[in-house]
């Protein structure tokens, strides 16, 4: 009897998705954005501006101020002044009310923020509308409630604020990362100088407008824009009490070295190379969806992306087959289209890096499989990509690519997969797919990662602590544990 061919999913149809673009006419953007220091938008000391572009069209959206050391200094001074004069003296429950206001204003202006996030960063409107912006609002809402309850969170310790927090955030979740940083800092009574990434300053600056509208006392939050040296200048500033950084492991290491020997407190949320592990008893269709979401969510620009897939050998053929089928259905293109699954790569630089890794993967001997989809001629796009027959030593299995590229390996035993999953400098997150509860808890206790998703992936919640082991950084954001980095006891 001939071997039965696995059934191919019939995705072919004459029906096409009609374009369903999100309207952009309601958003309010300025031609030029200044620095937000001491409650006011002020011109940068350098007099210099840089362009922020739409990565899906390569068209300029706006000019953004480039801060220099002097601007950093005045932002820190404003934060210090606000800390000394108002914020540290304000009763905690009144502090909370300002944070609640910010949460409400984000909710009210959610659609505008979503559209701008998509325009400026390239992520699909569906994700910015349904994930980034609501989570950002919820984060403020959640931490607002903690402001007057800190004594309960840390009994017998009388927690106190630190002072001025310098926060540097990445371009993959611009508004959400700003919320993750600012909300707990304010709730614990600190003041803030925040620097968004240079390719995605706009929603942080819209947040500055919201903060102005909320009536938050001047200087409590300062937002300064620019490139790497601005962040470096913040890290080295003498009057900053705490640095919170989310970004690459390399920069994280540099920051840790730079603050060595000072009293600055530090938290780092760095890179990852998560193992997504599929056992033979897993619900395969669900797992395939989980793999797709794990690696292609936000174009793979996710530090906790499930970028290493481990499939148990007995189901590898089926999983890979279904995965290829599913890959074919992903819609790559205009991020503003509500049908789009995978939007634009955030920048030219990142696109080059991803393409470089595709070459490395092929040269190292892995088998590349890409969706046959067409991608727009303009803008920064890449086809969703699988690498089959990879091994643990391949660079694409070891290094963070930060793009829609999945490295697939197979395994036979639990021992083997635990060993392989852990054998990497990173330890941010992992995924486990199995029908067996006892196996999930076995894996969660043995995987060296800060977040383990079981039969789900890429789930975030303001109440849930997030952060890494090993070279994925230290400190947690979210939940009760997310208060600790901003308090002294």
């Amino acid at each position, binding site marked *: 009897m001939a071997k039965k061919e696995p059934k191919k999913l019939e995705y072919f149809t004459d029906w096409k998705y009609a374009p369903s673009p999100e309207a952009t006419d309601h958003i309010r953007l300025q031609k030029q954005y200044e620095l937000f220091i001491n409650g006011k938008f002020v011109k940068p000391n350098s007099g210099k501006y840089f362009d922020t572009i739409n990565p899906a069209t390569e068209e300029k959206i706006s000019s953004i101020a480039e801060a220099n050391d002097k601007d950093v200094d005045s932002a820190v001074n404003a934060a210090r002044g606000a800390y000394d004069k108002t914020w540290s003296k304000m009763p905690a429950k009144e502090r909370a009310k300002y944070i609640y206001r910010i949460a409400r204003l984000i909710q009210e202006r959610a659609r505008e923020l979503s559209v701008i996030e998509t325009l400026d960063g390239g992520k699909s409107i569906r994700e910015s509308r349904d994930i980034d912006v609501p989570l950002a609002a919820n984060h403020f809402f*959640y931490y607002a409630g903690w402001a007057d309850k800190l004594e309960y969170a840390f009994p017998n310790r009388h927690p106190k604020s630190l002072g001025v927090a310098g926060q540097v955030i990445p371009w993959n979740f611009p508004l959400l990362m700003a919320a993750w940083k600012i909300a707990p800092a304010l709730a614990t009574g600190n003041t803030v100088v925040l620097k968004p990434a240079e390719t995605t300053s706009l929603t942080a600056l819209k947040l500055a407008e919201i903060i102005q509208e909320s009536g938050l006392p001047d200087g409590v939050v300062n937002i300064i824009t620019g490139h790497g040296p601005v962040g470096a200048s913040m890290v080295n500033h003498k009057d900053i009490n705490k640095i919170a950084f989310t970004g690459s492991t390399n920069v994280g290491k540099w920051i840790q070295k730079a603050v060595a020997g000072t009293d600055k407190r530090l938290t780092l949320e760095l890179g990852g190379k998560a193992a997504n592990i599929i056992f033979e008893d897993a619900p395969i269709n669900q797992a395939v969806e989980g793999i797709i979401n794990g690696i292609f969510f936000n174009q793979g620009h996710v530090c906790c992306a499930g970028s290493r897939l481990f499939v148990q050998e007995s189901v590898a053929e089926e999983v890979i087959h279904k995965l290829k089928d599913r890959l074919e259905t992903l819609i790559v293109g205009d991020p503003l289209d509500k049908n789009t699954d995978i939007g634009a790569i955030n920048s030219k630089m990142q696109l080059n890096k991803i393409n470089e890794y595709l070459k490395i993967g092929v040269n190292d001997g892995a088998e590349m499989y890409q969706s046959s989809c067409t991608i727009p001629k303009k803008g920064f796009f890449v086809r969703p990509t699988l690498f089959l027959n990879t091994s643990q030593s391949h660079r694409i299995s070891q290094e963070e690519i930060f793009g829609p590229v999945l490295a697939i390996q197979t395994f036979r035993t639990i021992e083997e997969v635990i060993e392989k999953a852990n054998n990497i400098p990173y330890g941010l997150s992992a995924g486990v797919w199995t029908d067996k509860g006892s196996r999930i*808890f076995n894996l969660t206790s043995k995987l060296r990662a800060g977040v383990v998703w079981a039969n789900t992936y890429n789930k975030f919640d303001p109440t849930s602590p997030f952060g890494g082991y090993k070279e994925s950084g230290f400190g947690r954001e979210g939940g009760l544990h997310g208060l600790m980095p901003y308090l002294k006891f």
Partner: protein
Amino acid sequence: MERIEVLKTYKIFIGGQFPRTESGRYYPLKLKNNMTVNVSLSSRKDFRNAVVIARGAFSGWSSRAAFNRGQILYRIAEMLEGRKEQFLEELKQLGYSAAAAKKEVEQSIDRLVYYAGWCDKYQQMFSAVNPVATAHFNFSVPEPMGVVAILADESTALLGLISAVAPCIAGGNTCIVLASESKPTCSITFAEVLATSDVPGGVVNIITGSRKELHAHFSSHMDVNAIINCNFEKDFNKTIGENASLNVKRVFTWNKNWSDEKEQGPYFITDLQEIKTTWHPIENIGVSGIKY
């Protein structure tokens, strides 16, 4: 000719609606402006109806995301802030000075915001992963008790009621409240706030009437899980305690000075929570020592 004012009929609040008491009875309440309000003198039957409604609302309310409950409590605070003037006026009619009325309303709003914040946080403080000696993942989490009967504080018109209701619903319970007998009007106006704050119908039910008449029914009902008595009345307390034993109701006496900021906190929530412990096996194969 001078315009004649339209007077408000104060009814009761059950299942998100404002029915009159089924008993048709009333008691007169003289206000400071010399007007008289005929307050519903609710019956045992009103209470029993309310319990059925509260029980029906429990599964929906307790399974709401904690975050969503927080949003709704915050919404109540927003609505109350917006109707501050009305409450100030009503409190004055009940004999409050202007300053006392202002303090009462502002504290009530702040208390709602305070408990809104607790909705998705008390679980993190009172849950535990228990390090049992066997290969089990063992964890304990609080869960709401169910339907709670509340005899609200007699001495305050608004703050006492809110101080008892807020922690009760923040924790996912539903309740039937007997308003202050001598100051019932604000409670019913507060029900209007609840009715326009996205609080699902039946989560909070407020009736007015005689504590003397109703305390025995509040405490003896077999489908009520807990009773909170905010007053200290020796005879009533004994009856309540004895009746509660019929179905092992949890009894709490919250006879507090609610204007004291210390009289708020997560322990008001945990009073009305059960603790549930779950055991789950952990498979133990794989590397014995973690190497990285």
